[in-house]
């Protein structure tokens, strides 16, 4: 149970332009109910940087599928002798779509990464995320009902996973953090389970 991620996290500068971030003071850490002290941080920490390549890989799959599908569609239109104007319009539209997906693949994941933070304190878990639409959710320890760790195939390649925390609530009944280092996610989950049993 060593922690390979914390070192890699340290050198990444936190985005200080985040408007939600500036006003948060550190919480007192006395009488911590959390055993593994290295999970607790006085301030928000970023998720694992391997989130970026994993997201890129996932978007790349989508990009390749879309690009090849549009190629097939365009060729089919050309072969069936569709109207010239229609063909050009379709080509322009699909090219724009592919360009958008290209941007989504290479430029969006780092932006997204810079806007996801989590913090574990003796009070509970806080997650803030969102580039344009920002949200910040705080769940007290005692309200976490159970937690799941899930990993897709691409996430498994990069050894990261998503942690989902369930509460008894209505709208925020499950809150997920994507892109935690797998070992860290497992330890966090165990921590929450231990919390429940304590």
């Amino acid at each position, binding site marked *: 149970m060593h922690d390979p991620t914390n070192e890699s996290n340290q050198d990444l500068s936190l985005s200080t332009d985040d*408007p*939600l971030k500036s*006003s*948060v003071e550190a*919480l007192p850490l006395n009488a911590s*109910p959390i055993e593994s002290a290295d999970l607790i941080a006085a301030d928000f920490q970023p998720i694992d940087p391997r989130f970026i390549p994993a997201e890129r890989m996932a978007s790349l799959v989508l990009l390749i599928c879309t690009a090849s599908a549009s190629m097939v569609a365009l060729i089919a239109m050309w072969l069936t002798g569709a109207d010239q104007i229609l063909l050009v319009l379709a080509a322009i539209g699909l090219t724009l779509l592919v360009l958008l997906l290209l941007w989504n693949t290479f430029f969006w994941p780092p932006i997204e990464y810079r806007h996801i933070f989590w913090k574990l304190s003796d*009070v*509970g878990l*806080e997650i803030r995320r*969102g580039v*344009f*639409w*920002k*949200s*910040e*959710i*705080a*769940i*007290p*320890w*005692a*309200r976490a*009902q*159970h937690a799941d760790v899930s990993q897709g195939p691409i996430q498994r390649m990069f050894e990261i996973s998503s942690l989902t925390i*369930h*509460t*008894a*609530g*209505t*709208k*925020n*009944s499950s*809150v997920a953090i994507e892109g935690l280092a797998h070992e860290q996610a497992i330890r966090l989950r165990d921590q929450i389970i231990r*919390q*429940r049993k*304590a």
Partner: protein
Amino acid sequence: MTSSPPSEHDDDPTISDDHSNPFATPSTTTSPLPATAESDQDKYLHPISLVFSLIGQIKSNLIPAIFGVLGAANGNVFYISLALIFLIPSIAIAVIRYFTVRYRIFNGELVVNEGLFFRRTRTVPVERIQNIDLVQGVLHRIFNVAEVRVETASGTKPEAVLSVLSLSQVQLLRRNVFQQKSNDLHNNASNPATIRPLESAASNPASHPSYKPQRYPSVASLENDGAQACSLEDSTILKIPLSWLAKAGFASNRGLIMVGVLLGLYFQFDRRQEHEYDFSFLSQWLPDLSNPFVMTAAVIAACLLGLLLMRVLGVAWYILRFFGYRLSLSGEDFKISCGLFTKVSATVPRKRIQFISIHSNFVSRLLGLCSIRIETAGGASSENESATTTVSKRWFIPVIPAADVTEMIGTLRPGLQWTPDQYDWQPLSPKAGRRMVRIAILVSLLLAPLGYYFFGIWGCSVTLPALPILVAYAVKKSRAVKFARTAFGVVYRSGILTHKISLTFYEKIQATSITQTPFDRRWAMATLSVDTVAAGPADHEIEIKYLDAELARSAQRQIFQASAGR
């Protein structure tokens, strides 16, 4: 560890694991009980449930059934087959259901078997059963049976529905369940180590300054004599006289909804059947409408008649639903019973109350009345709302004089001082009014093309009356919304015509969140939301938009810390 004595305040369904997971394995501390002889055997539903099941089946396919029957009466083969398609499976399902549904209490669990091809065995540990609610329609009452809903804290619908059992079966079931429950209480009392320190700290009202020792000694009898648990004496808290119901019905807009339903039904049938009704015979009773004065008088009279009809329908609805309303406290459980034809009795454990909401509309404020709604853990979902949930959640107290609210809230939550005038109310951002006015102007301008589309060039003029109304509404609304952090929890008020004040408690708050849209950031605003269990039925979720961002952030931080018990 699953259900601690009610005198301890750690039995909070919202945070203890025994209620959270419907699939959880039964607790290991469940002790095998001296099960009574009759509870060992499988029991079937009451035979009359065949009829009720069939009625229920037909009800759920009401529209096709009506068309089928109407068409079949004309001898149309298509409609006859349609009717048969709906009828035969209904009968089959009813018969299969009757012969396959069995239940018993065995080894501390209520076991319900059902299904012919896909057998399903549902096991509900008795100590997790929160309510055994009854619904009795007119037919049920004739046959002395009732629909039984077994509710746990989990999920959005009753854990098991037994439709229908005879009243003696219900008595037996209740006795078995509550006997079992009280035995568990004994086990727990002798095992104090099972109380989780963190959670009891988080949920213990003693940590709040407003806490006072409970006034209700009846809990003691639960612990002293478990066998007597089901026969605790009730102390009546509230009885609603007919005059209050009539006033509340008069004040409510319920009649409008009913008129809408009737109109909808009328048009539905009118179109589909393409019948031409001849209303010309009515004209002989009508006065000469070509005279403009007579015409005006007739229109005014019709409007007044319509209004009166609406109010009368509202009164009728209230009386039908809440006739003989009685709220009583038995131990730590509130019991409600009401209904003129369909009699409903529901149980609401005090500790499951998550959220209390006081509503009063314009007319009811003039009459000095309001209603109190609550939200409880479990069983709340607007989709499959049953009569019991309607009464126990949506309409906990349908009408109460405004002067009695303070006392009633003190009863719902012992020790709570309800003094809304003294709370530190936080308004919306000072710029909120301006922002809402801008939205109002935008909406009223957008109305112009819409009016043009429907009524031509003169339709654009809808903007003229809409603009001042919408702007005034926006200004008023921005001033009406306020929230306060108090010693016990969060209080939120809103509304211009219909005033709503809601309160929830720190130990019931599941999550707090702040969201900011790009527009919010431009105005330096944020939305603060407070999530509780099964939010929604009280129709007043705590989601406060257009708050000043700094205020929202510090409020969220403080609510978060308070809800974690510090």
